[in-house]
């Protein structure tokens, strides 16, 4: 990666969806840059394009037009394998519904991304335990998701996002399924991770959640309507 190059650089991103005979313009000419180490909240009402933007940043979807550079690599130039590798090594995902595998222990859930790496068994175990320690759940590593509270489940999911040491965590409404006290704890954890150098981009529609970030990008009708720096809470 070129020094000084932004971690994310979006140039004229367009995403259209065809719904039957009509075309939905989910993103219209979006330009944005996110540098390494930032903590960004992406906000907007539903249908504003914020989730589409996140999916593109996560290499889970391809833009209709425009250019998207992730960690110095042009997404359009990456084939399926290379995109999978980018998601595995550079990005970590956190979802609103946690997306943990049922009947699978916390530590095995955390190991999921490592399943697609060449690391040996001991190293996978070591990293998974370390990631669980980082989120304060080492003593629950043998618990299945059904034996954990919502906040704990989201911590396991965050440990899973961290386990392969990504440069950026993408969190889509990570507190949407949690009560406000637990949500605060999770946001504090994101703040700490960011302080340790991980870039965090999170999508939310709640102002209190967005206040934890130092930058807030607002979407409406497929366009960025504001992009402001703020005091982190």
């Amino acid at each position, binding site marked *: 990666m070129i020094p000084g190059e932004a971690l994310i650089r979006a140039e004229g991103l367009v995403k259209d969806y065809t719904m039957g005979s009509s075309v939905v313009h989910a993103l219209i000419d979006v330009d944005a840059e996110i540098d390494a180490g930032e903590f960004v909240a992406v906000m907007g009402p539903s249908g504003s394009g914020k989730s589409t933007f996140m999916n593109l940043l996560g290499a*889970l979807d391809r833009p209709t037009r425009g250019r998207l550079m992730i960690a110095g690599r042009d997404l359009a130039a990456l084939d399926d394998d290379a995109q*999978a590798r980018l998601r595995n090594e550079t990005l970590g995902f956190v*979802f609103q519904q946690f*997306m943990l595998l049922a*009947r699978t222990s916390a530590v095995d859930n955390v190991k999921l991304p490592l399943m*697609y790496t060449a690391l040996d068994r001991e190293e996978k175990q070591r990293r998974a335990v370390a990631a669980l320690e980082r989120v304060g759940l080492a003593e629950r590593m043998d618990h299945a998701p059904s034996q954990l509270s919502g906040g704990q489940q989201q911590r396991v999911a965050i440990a899973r996002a961290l386990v392969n040491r990504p440069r950026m965590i993408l969190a889509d409404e990570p507190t949407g399924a949690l009560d406000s006290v637990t949500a605060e704890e999770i946001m504090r954890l994101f703040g700490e991770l960011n302080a340790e150098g991980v870039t965090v981009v999170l999508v939310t529609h709640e102002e209190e959640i967005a206040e934890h970030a130092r930058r807030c990008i607002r979407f409406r009708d497929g366009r960025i309507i504001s992009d402001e720096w703020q005091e982190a809470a």
Partner: protein
Amino acid sequence: MNAERPGLNLSASLAIALKAIRTNSIRSLLTMLGIIIGIAAAIVAVSIAQGAGKQLTEQIEQFGTHVLQVRPGTSFFGGRSRGAGSARAVTDDDVEALLELDGIEAASGRALAGVTLVAGGRNWTTSLFGVGADFGLIQDWGIAQGRGITPGEARRGAKIAVIGKTVANELFEGSDPIGQRIRINRTPATVVGLLEEKGATSWGQDQDDTVWMPLETVRSRVARSAGSVVDDAGRIYLKVWDDLDVLDVQAEIEDLMRVRRNIQPGADDDFRVINFAEFIRARNETESLLGFLLAAFSATSLIVGGIGIMNIMLVSVTERTREIGLRRAVGARSRDVLTQFLVEATVLGLIGGLVGLALGVGGTMLAGRLGEFPVLLSPATLIGAVGIAVVIAVFFGYYPARRASRLDPIDALRFE
């Protein structure tokens, strides 16, 4: 970043597959039922077919592939049998004439009579064969001790006998039978030879329970009955040279016999030439038919089983769409997903195949015991059966696995 990244490793895929199968164990078992039944039926079918084939080979070897028999009487086929009793006999002259044919190595008449043997204070009822000097050669049946019937003895009707092992045991209880005097239906004879022990046929007849005398002796002294033809040869056994085609020689024999018996072209034969190999093959077709039916049933079952696997894999893929999306999000390539589901289908097939194998082996043994026909369980059959189960599973599992691997990550993640 450019180094080749290894895919999902096999043991990880296996662990995922086993977990998925265990989670839905009843469903998985039901899915495997088609494969289980199909593989079990296949093993039973092949084992019966191989058993029948082995028996066929044994029987043909017992009679010899190059042995023909000429007997009086019309053919079974044609529906106008006049009965053996009314048929013209085949005679010593026929034996001589057939021996003139280039294709014939040896020929011998053979008359059969049930007799009671007496030696010392003992008696024994057995089958008496009145035969020529070459009968042993034709039957590939050697002499264990002493000697066989000589051509001279055969011609003049000497009062000598060659006995089988069972007869020797019954009459002489292990003491040397050679040179002993016996009475055969009141005709005295000297034992000159002991036949090699042949044991029982595969259908359980003791071949060693027999006594041979020259055909002429049997005709003139032992089994003499009013009205019988003086030179009746009973049935004629012929040995065809090994390097000749039996069917060609059989045709020559039939032509010669027709000429000798003045049978006009188009008229029915009043004799038959029996080809043992053909005869046994025809008899075994019944058992082959059973094998064929089972094989057809097994194939149907396997296809149904394969479709069952395809169906359940499609269900599994749909149920786990979000899991697939998650795996893609954390770095699984589409071919990792393909591998995962193919391994799962393979494991289903393998388990089904192994259970089918156990049932098939049990079923084969049961069939062999209840049906009283020979079965042959060969390792190749068992390995092949499990192999087929796996191949079917991979074949039918490929489409669902491919579908899973082609899912768009974001669509899969959002799937409700």
